[in-house]
C-alpha cells in the first residue's frame, strides 16, 4: 500500500485474551472442518508412532539379530527379514499418514481462509459508512492481506507442528525412559541448557528486530516521501541534502539489522551444536553404562537412544521457534475477528418500495414492471397497509446532526423540495453541504429532527429501498473492474443493452464509449485508470441515469477539467436532472442560477435561501461569493 508505513513487525504484539481468541479461531476452524481436523490429529499420531517404532527397531536389530548372529556360525536370516518387513509396514503407514495429514491440511487451510475472506467481505459490505470514515483504507486492506496471511501460517504450519511436536516429545520421552532412565535425565538437563541459551539469543534478537523495524519504517517513510517528491527534489536541486539524510537513516538501519540478524543466525548453531554436545555426552555416558551393564542398557539400546536424543531436541526447538509466530498470528486473528465483530448497519425500516399500478383510482401492488412505484406502508399499530406513490418530495424538519454526539455539524436544517425541483447548496468547504446529502440516503442517522420522503419518515423505510429510489453522482467518481457496459449496468442490474446505450446517450457518454477500442465491452481496470477524468464522470452520470430515480443527489466536480469537456459533462448532468428532484452541491454558476432554490450554508447552518435574483438583491454572503467571482481579476 503506497502511503502507508509498514506496521513494525517483530514488535511483540499485545493480545488481550490469547486463550479465548485461540479457542474462537479453533471453533471457527472446527465448525467447517470437524472431521478433517479429527483425521489430521489421528494421522499425525499414527505417523509419529510409526516413526518411534522404526527407531526402536535399531535396538532389536543390534541386540536380537546382529549380536547373536556373530555368535553362531550359520545365522538364520529369515527372522530378520520378517522383522524388517514389519518395520517396512510401519514406515509405510508413517509415510502415508504423513502425506494424508498434509493433504487434508491444504483443504482445511485454504478452505478456512476462503470462508474467512468471504465472511470478512460480506460483513464489511454491511458496515455503516462511519466505519470507513474512521478506519484508514490501508488498515482495512492489511486485514485482508497481512493478517490473513499470518493466519494461514498459524493454521497450516504452527498448529500441526505443535501437535506433531507434542506427540513426538511424549512418545520419544516414554521410549527414552524405557531404554535408560539415567540417560533420559542427562538428555533433559541438556535440553534445559539449550533452551536457556536459545532463549537468551532469541530475546536479544527480538529486541534488535524491534529496533530494526523502527529504523526500516523510518527509512521506508523517507524513501516513499522522496520518491513521490522526486520531481520537486530535482526542481530545487536538493539531491545532495537528500543523499546525506538517506545515508544517516540507511546506516542506522544497517547497524540494527546487522545485530538482529546476527542473533537470529546464531540461534541455529546454538540449537544444532549444543544438541550435538548432548548427543556426545549421552554417547560417552551410554558407552560407560553399556560396558558395565548398568541399568540394563544394551548396545542396541544405546544406538536407539542416541537417535531418540536427536529427535527429542528437534521438536522442542521447533516449538520454541513457533511461539513468536503464534503470538503474531493471534494479533492478526484479533484484527480479523475485530472487523467481523463491528456492528453492522441496522435497518429497522418496514416501509418497502413496490411496483404499482392504478386500479379504480387506487394504487395496488403488482409483480410486473409498470414503471410506477409506490411505498408500501404497513402500519405497525393495526397491520393495515397503505400505498403511497413514489414522487420525490423531500422535507427536512429541524434536523441536527453530528458525527459524534458531542459535536454537531448541522444545526436546525429546514428545507422543502417539491417533486422535480432543483435545490442547490453553496458554501465553503466544511460548511456541511455534503453532509446534508449523506443524510437523505441515510449514510448517517440524524440526532434530532425529521426527514420525510413523500411524507414518510425515512427512518421507517427499508434502507435498501430508500437508496434505490435515490440516484447519486459523487464528486470522486469510482468505477469498478469490468466492462463499460457492466459499469453502467451497476445502476440497474437487469438493464438491456438498449437501455445501457440509451442511458449513455442521455449522459453524453455514448460518443466517447464508441471510440474506445472495444466500445461498450472495453475493460476498465484500476478505478477506470484508462479513462480521463471527464469520461469517468460521464460514466457515473450514465450509471445514475439507468437507475432512473425520482430523486437525484449530485456533487459537482471542482477539479479542473478543460472547458470543452466540462461543457459535455454539464450537458449530461442537465439532461439527467430534468424532471427529477435534485439536490446539487454546486460549483458552477449556471447550475446555481438555474436552481429553484439556493441554500447558502455556513458552519452547518442555512444562512440564506432563495432564488438567484432574490439572493443578489439581499446583498449578503451569496452576493459576496457571486461578485467575488465575477470581479475576480
Amino acid at each position: 500500500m503506497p502511503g502507508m508505513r509498514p506496521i513494525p513487525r517483530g514488535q511483540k504484539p499485545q493480545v488481550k485474551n490469547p486463550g479465548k481468541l485461540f479457542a474462537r479461531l479453533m471453533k471457527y476452524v472446527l465448525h467447517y472442518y470437524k472431521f478433517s481436523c479429527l483425521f489430521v490429529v489421528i494421522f499425525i499420531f499414527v505417523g509419529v508412532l510409526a516413526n518411534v517404532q522404526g527407531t526402536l527397531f535399531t535396538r532389536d536389530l543390534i541386540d536380537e539379530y546382529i549380536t547373536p548372529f556373530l555368535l553362531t556360525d550359520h545365522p538364520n536370516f529369515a527372522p530378520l527379514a520378517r522383522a524388517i518387513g514389519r518395520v517396512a509396514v510401519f514406515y509405510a503407514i508413517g509415510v502415508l499418514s504423513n502425506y494424508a495429514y498434509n493433504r487434508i491440511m491444504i483443504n482445511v487451510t485454504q478452505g478456512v481462509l476462503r470462508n474467512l475472506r468471504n465472511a470478512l467481505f460480506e460483513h464489511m459490505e454491511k458496515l455503516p459508512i462511519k466505519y470507513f470514515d474512521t478506519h484508514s483504507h490501508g488498515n482495512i486492506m492489511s486485514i485482508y492481506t497481512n493478517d490473513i496471511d499470518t493466519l494461514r501460517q498459524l493454521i497450516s504450519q504452527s498448529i500441526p507442528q505443535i501437535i506433531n511436536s507434542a506427540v513426538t516429545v511424549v512418545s520419544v520421552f516414554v521410549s527414552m525412559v524405557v531404554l535408560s532412565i539415567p540417560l533420559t535425565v542427562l538428555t533433559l538437563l541438556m535440553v534445559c541448557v539449550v533452551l536457556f541459551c536459545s532463549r537468551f539469543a532469541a530475546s536479544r534478537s527480538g529486541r534488535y528486530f524491534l529496533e530494526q523495524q523502527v529504523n526500516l519504517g523510518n527509512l521506508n517513510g523517507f524513501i516513499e516521501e522522496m520518491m513521490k517528491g522526486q520531481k520537486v527534489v530535482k526542481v530545487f536541486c536538493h539531491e545532495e541534502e537528500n543523499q546525506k539524510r538517506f545515508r544517516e537513516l540507511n546506516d542506522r538501519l544497517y547497524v540494527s539489522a546487522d545485530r538482529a540478524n546476527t542473533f537470529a543466525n546464531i540461534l541455529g548453531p546454538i540449537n544444532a551444536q549444543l544438541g550435538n554436545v548432548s548427543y556426545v555426552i549421552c554417547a560417552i555416558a551410554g558407552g560407560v553404562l553399556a560396558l558395565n551393564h548398568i541399568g540394563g542398557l544394551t548396545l542396541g539400546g544405546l544406538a536407539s537412544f542416541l537417535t531418540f536424543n536427536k529427535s527429542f531436541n528437534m521438536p522442542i526447538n521447533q516449538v520454541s521457534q513457533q511461539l513468536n509466530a503464534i503470538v503474531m498470528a493471534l494479533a492478526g486473528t484479533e484484527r480479523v475477528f475485530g472487523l467481523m465483530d463491528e456492528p453492522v448497519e441496522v435497518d429497522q425500516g418496514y416501509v418497502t418500495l413496490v411496483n404499482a399500478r392504478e386500479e379504480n383510482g387506487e394504487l395496488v401492488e403488482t409483480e410486473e414492471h409498470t414503471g410506477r412505484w409506490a411505498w408500501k406502508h404497513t402500519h405497525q399499530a393495526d397491520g393495515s397497509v397503505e400505498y403511497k406513490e413514489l414522487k420525490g418530495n423531500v422535507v427536512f424538519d429541524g434536523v441536527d446532526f453530528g458525527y459524534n454526539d458531542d459535536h454537531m455539524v448541522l444545526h436546525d436544517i429546514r428545507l422543502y423540495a417539491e417533486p422535480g425541483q432543483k435545490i442547490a447548496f453553496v458554501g465553503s468547504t466544511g460548511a456541511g453541504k455534503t453532509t446534508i446529502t449523506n443524510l437523505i440516503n441515510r449514510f448517517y442517522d440524524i440526532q434530532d429532527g425529521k426527514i420525510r420522503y413523500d411524507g414518510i419518515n425515512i427512518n421507517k423505510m427499508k434502507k435498501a429501498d430508500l437508496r434505490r429510489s435515490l440516484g447519486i453522482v459523487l464528486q470522486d467518481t469510482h468505477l469498478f473492474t469490468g466492462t463499460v457496459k457492466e459499469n453502467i449496468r451497476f445502476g440497474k442490474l437487469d438493464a438491456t443493452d438498449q437501455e445501457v446505450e440509451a442511458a449513455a446517450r442521455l449522459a453524453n457518454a455514448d460518443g466517447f464509449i464508441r471510440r474506445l477500442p472495444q466500445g461498450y465491452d472495453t475493460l476498465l481496470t484500476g478505478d477506470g485508470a484508462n479513462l480521463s477524468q471527464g469520461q469517468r464522470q460521464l460514466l457515473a452520470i450514465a450509471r445514475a441515469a439507468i437507475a432512473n430515480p425520482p430523486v437525484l443527489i449530485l456533487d459537482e466536480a471542482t477539479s479542473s477539467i478543460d472547458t470543452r469537456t466540462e461543457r459535455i459533462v454539464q450537458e449530461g448532468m442537465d439532461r439527467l436532472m430534468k424532471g427529477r428532484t435534485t439536490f446539487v452541491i454546486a460549483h458552477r454558476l449556471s447550475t446555481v442560477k438555474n436552481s429553484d432554490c439556493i441554500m447558502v450554508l455556513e458552519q452547518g447552518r442555512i444562512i440564506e435561501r432563495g432564488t438567484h435574483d432574490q439572493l443578489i438583491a439581499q446583498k449578503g454572503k451569496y452576493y459576496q461569493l457571486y461578485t467575488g467571482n465575477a470581479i475576480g481579476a
Partner: protein
Amino acid sequence: MLRRILREVKEYKAASIATPLYMLLEVMMETLIPFLMASIIDQGVNAGDIAHIYKVGGLMLLAAAVGLLGGLLGGRYGAKASTGFAKNLREAMFDHIQTFSFANIDKFSTAGLVTRLTTDVTNLQNAYQMVLRMMMRSPASMLCALIMAFRISAKLSTIYLAAVIVLAVCLFFIIRHATRYFRQAFPKYDELNASVQENVSAIRVVKAYVREEQETDKFHKASQNIYKIFTKAETNVIVNAPLMQFTVYTCIILISWFGAKLIVSNELTTGELMSLLAYCMNILMSLMMLSMVFVMISMSTASMERIYEVLEETSDLTSPENALTEVADGSISFRHVDFSYHKTSEKPVLKDVNLEIAPGETIGIIGGTGSAKTSLVNLISRLYDVTEGEVLVGGRNVKEYDMEALRNQVAVVLQNNVLFSGTIYENLRWGDQNATDEECRRVCRLACADEFIEKFPEGYNTRIEQGGNNVSGGQKQRLCIARALLKKPKILILDDSTSAVDTATDARIRKALREEIPGTTKLIIAQRVSSVQDADRIIVMEDGTVNGLGTHEELLASNEIYREVFESQTGGSGDFDENRDQ
C-alpha cells in the same frame, strides 16, 4: 546482471568470503561426530576399553565446541555481509535515482521505485544471506557425510548415492511444477485484493446503489477461485515431506538388512553401522535445504532484475563540461522546438514552437487538457530535452548551462506539487538553505500564505505531515509558491498553481508578484481566464502548437479558442468558486 549487483558488496567482501568458510568448519565438525561415534562403540564398548571411550568422547566434545564456534562466527559474518550488502544496494540505487531526469522518473512509477528500494532489497538481502550460509553448507555437509560413509563402507554407501540422485530428480520436478502453479496463483491473489481495495474506496457508491449482495457474490466467486488454484498448487508441494521420509526410511531398511549381512561376514562393525544410519539424516536433510535455497534464489531473481534496471538506467540529461554557471537575464526563446516524451512516438507533443519572451514579462498560458502547456514550460528549466530545435534562457541554449545553476534561476511550481514532512520553515528553506526567518515571512506575504500560517497555533513552526495532508489544497499551493519565490529566481513558472486558491486571493498573489518582483519573468499556466487576462501577453496552446499570442484584448478580437473559453467562463457557466480555504 549478477556481476553488476554483486559489485555493491564492496567493503563486505571479507565477511562474504569468511561466512562460507566458517560454515564449512561447522559442517566438518558435524560429520566428524558420528565417525568418532563408531570408534566409541567398536573400540570402546565392544572392546571394553573405558579409557578409549573417554579419549574419543573428549575429541567429540572438542569437535562439537569447534563446530559451535564455526556456526556462531558464520552466523555473525553472514549477518554482517548480507545487511551490509543491502545497505550498499539501497545507497547505490538512491544515489543513482538522484541523478535521474524527469523522463527517467516517469519511466519508473513512484510506487515502483519505492518497492525496488524496500521490498526488493530485503528479498535480495535474505537470498544473499541464504546463499552465503547454505550454498556452501548444504552441499559440503552432504559431500562430507557421503565421503565418510564411503570410507566406512563403499558397498552400503552406494545406497545413499542412489537415494540422493532419485530424491534430487524428484525434488527438481516437484519444485518446477509447483512454481508454475504458484506463478499462476499469485496474480489471482492480487486481483482479489484489488477488488477489496475497490470496494473499500467505493463503498459509498456500492451502498448508494444497494449493490452489497452483488459485490459479495462477485467476491465469493473470486475467493473460490483462489481456493481452487492454491489447493492445486499446494498439493504439489506437500509431496516433498512424505517423499523425503520415504527415502530416509527406505535407506534405513536397506542399510539395516545389508549391514547385518556385512557384519556377519565381518566386513562391517556394529559401531560403523550406527554411524552410517546417523549419516542418513545428514545427507538427505542437506539435499532438502539445498532445494529450498534454489527456490529462494529463483524467487529473488525477479527482485534482482528490478534492482538491476534501476542501477543500469542512465540519466539522459547531464551537465556539459565547462558549463555556464551564470544566467544573464530572464529572457526565454524557443526556436523551432519539437518535443516528444518517447523518441519512438510518431506524434510529437510540441510542434515547431517559436517564442520570444523578454526579461520581466508576465506571460499567461491557456489551453485545454493535453494541449502541451506543461510540456512547454518543462523545457525551460531543462526538465526534459527538446527533440528538435533549441530553447534559450538568458540568450544561451539551456544545454550549455550547469543544470543546478539553471534550475536555481528558473523556479517551477509544479502542477502536482509536494510538501515534505517538517516545519513550514523547513519546507520553505528548500528554496534557500540560508534564508533568514524574515526572508521566509516576506515570501509568504507575497504568496498570501502569511494569513493562514499566522493563524496556526505554532505559526511558521507548524509541522507539515507527510504529503502535506494537514493543510488544504489552496494552502499547499500558496506554500509551494512561497518556497519557489525564496529562490529569488530570474524566471518563475507557475503551472496551474492557484487552481485551488479562490479568485480574490489569486488576484492578490498576482498583484504582489507584479509589484514586488518586477524583474522576474513570470509564466502562469491556468484554466481560468481571470488568472491570465491581466498578463502582458497570453499564449493560447492547442494541440501542441501556439494557436494565439497577444494581450487579452487582442486575443478576444482575433482568437476563436480564447474567446470561446472566455465566454464559457464568464457568460453563465463559469466557476462558482467559493472560498475553499477557510
